[in-house]
């Protein structure tokens, strides 16, 4: 990686498999997208807290860093 390997640029342990493939996204047609989202929503329905209001109210943190 340029900028972080100035002393040791060979990267000798790497094989081509280590490197991330360039993106090759295929944009789905717009009408398919709502169906995709609905399918995902079905997937998460049983994960979502049933009492969302109580859960959200109870999520209280202290500041950090």
């Amino acid at each position: 990686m340029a900028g972080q390997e100035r002393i040791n640029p060979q990267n000798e342990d790497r094989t081509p498999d280590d490197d991330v493939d360039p993106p090759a996204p295929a944009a789905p047609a717009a009408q398919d997208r709502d169906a995709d989202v609905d399918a995902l929503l079905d997937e998460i329905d049983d994960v979502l807290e049933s009492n969302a209001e109580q859960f959200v109210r109870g999520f209280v943190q202290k500041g950090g860093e």
Partner: protein
Amino acid sequence: MGIETEYGVLAPGRPAANPMLLSSQVVTTYRALVARAGARPAARWDYDDEDPLADARGFHLRRASAHPSMLTDDPAVPAPAGPVQATAPGPSQVARPDVDEADDPSAANCILTNGARLYVDHAHPEYSSPEVTGPRDAVLWDVAGERVMLAATRSLTGSPIGPDVVLYKNNVDGKGASYGTHENYLVDRALPFAVLAALVTPFLVTRQVFAGSGRVGLGPTGDRPGFQLTQRADYIEAEIGLETTLRRPIVNTRDEPHADRDRWRRLHLILGDANLFEVATYLKLGTTSLVLWVLEHLDELAEAGVPARDELAALRLADPVGDVRRVSRDIDLVGKLELADGRTLTALQVQEAYTDVVARALAAIGPRRDDDAETYVVLDRWRSLLERLGTDPESCAREVEWVAKRRLLEGLRRRDGIDWDHPRLHALDLQWTDVRPERSIYHRLLASGAVERLVDEDAVADAVHHPPTDTRAYFRGEVMARYPDQVSAASWDSVIFDVPGAAALQRVPMLDPLRGTRAHIGSLLEASHDAAALLKGLRGDRSA
């Protein structure tokens, strides 16, 4: 480079539980989980080289002038939480303490065999990743941190005496509190800090377009309904500064290099979000690194006909702090930012200007494509995302976290007929980041194939226990794995050994982050059956 992540901590059904104590139990539970039977008390953190009040602009904040939450280098007095917005020598000898230092629960600490540090920072458990040399490794050891937190949670929940603790990889509670995900980059000290800060700021302000993880709620307390690109934008209040707990800056000036300060500085960035999307972490670290590489080579680039200094200086924003919020709220990515020279550009156009400079800089003086594939993967992905964000943001839903989150939230609004102030949407935002796969929205998307992964789970499992091989984290992690009973303390740039029979402790400094690698000391470690043999070998060969 490396990432520090503070996790949100919650004891379900026990709103009054002390978060510092819970965080401490997370750390000590994980420590017990990985400790060998009969091991000595855990190695402590070596604070000798820490100096959180040194400012990169060349001065030093007096302890008495600092906010108490900034005093993070004294384990006897743990730093409290910040205010919540209502709105190269060889081993040296160290005297052996007469008694072991008290194991203060609020200073709980665990140095992991993967070279990371797990500890309590203020009121959160924090995983500080080992030092890595590239963004793919940054992703790998960052995700390993998620699995460390998961293991601690599972162990506490499975214990009859431990509290149930749930951990969240996010940055806000929606009530005014924020906790950080900090990035660290090793930067050549020859680059003046003022130049660095000025030329990197427009990039940092606008990288939210691909690096944000999305947030339900506007304003520090989230009291105004709506959606924005990032968790952190509402907590950034200064252009430059030393603080991390109040008046948080775009560019942090803490000058604590954890390395030879004549050669390097550590750029400490506190404005980023915790990301679960691996592409977001990958590009956030990768693109920032590329911009820093350009800044380190300004003179060389000028000679090669690439006037990067002037071109990037021309991108100076008229109101960078305000623009952090503007970009975060501009979910259609069309808002214009005012530049200091009077021009106006969108955040995407500012980013495109950076990619253009980086591409020409690489062509002029950079490594060739064949010699440094990862650098070019970062550049190609960066450009591809910017182009698609400009034409069809939804096509980025597998890669850009805020796009994926917003898509699901919009779907929920449409299906259930609810508006942005509905608690279901807030709950989805919080549950997105639950470290437990069975309770995490993110993991559901992952299981559905809706998210692109860059590392596989076998590699992550390995990274939970093993360090990167090409930085000093290798030395730290390997000595913790091989000689846990003979390590008294460690830090980013030192390990202190306690060898049985020796008159004093032996401190090994590691001021060069790129030494102590497997290539340097792997065979010595293999040949050293104990720490005494290792130290003898190191004395014979000062190059380690």
